[in-house]
């Protein structure tokens, strides 16, 4: 996956978590939804780690702060060059 594909994967995957989590708030015992949530959670964690390592942080709680603060550098979501 290139950067855009990986980013798109994170966006879609995160939306699945938003959607399933909302459903689970009112259906907390639904086995199918619980299982799906768990799967998406694992995929998201891995994809975010990979993205952050290669292209920079998408969350302030997950910046690789080795020798430079990279939080401000990449384009912000509303900027045209971002593509996100």
């Amino acid at each position, binding site marked *: 996956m290139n950067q855009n594909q990986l980013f798109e994967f994170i966006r879609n995957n995160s939306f699945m978590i938003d959607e399933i989590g909302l459903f689970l708030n009112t259906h907390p015992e639904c086995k199918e939804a619980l299982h799906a949530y768990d799967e998406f959670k694992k995929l998201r964690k891995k994809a975010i780690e990979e993205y952050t390592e290669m292209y920079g942080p998408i969350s302030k709680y997950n910046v690789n702060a080795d020798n430079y603060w990279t939080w401000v550098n990449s384009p*912000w979501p509303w900027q045209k060059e971002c593509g996100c």
Partner: protein
Amino acid sequence: MWVYEKRLQCPVNIKECNAKLAQAIISQYGGPDGEMGASMRYLSQRYSMPYKEVIATLTDIGTEELAHLEIVATIIYQLTKDLSMEEIKASGFDKYYIDHTIGIWPQAAGGVPFNACEFQVKGDIITDLVEDMAAEQKARSTYDNILRLCKDYPDVYEPIKFLRAREIVHFQRFGEALRLTQDKLNEKNFYAFNPSFDTTAPCLNDMKCQQ
């Protein structure tokens, strides 16, 4: 995109109800210098900002203000949740109670509803950052006024003291954002006008310009 974390930025554990204090503190929820206006101001100003450091500062402080909004709401909730009808009548909380019971609604201490006119988005980096610095000082003064009212209530005093300290830190960060911006202005731009919109320095004397 925002994600909620189920935790307060600073703990709040208030043991005794106090409707009078709650009515004063609610100003920092929906009043003229409250956390709701602060958050909306910074998050809305981000889009027209030309420098990414300033965008990051506005994003992070605007986000933190939402956490402060939750702390203020928690204080009001804990100060009002076990009130008796006698206490509601005696404290003057009855006027609020009529419309909101003990729900939390954004208003100033004097009862004026939250209003977006309490903040500005001018689309000019200098104008907006100077407003942001003033806003942090106004919020700090409001917390100072609250502290004078609650000095005998340590459960309330401590989280208010934390919130007051954050206003000072934010003022400092906005001051740095303004300084960083002024460093990037054209050397002719003595009066610090908007570099993202007005791209060249104005010349008041045409003759001088032609020379």
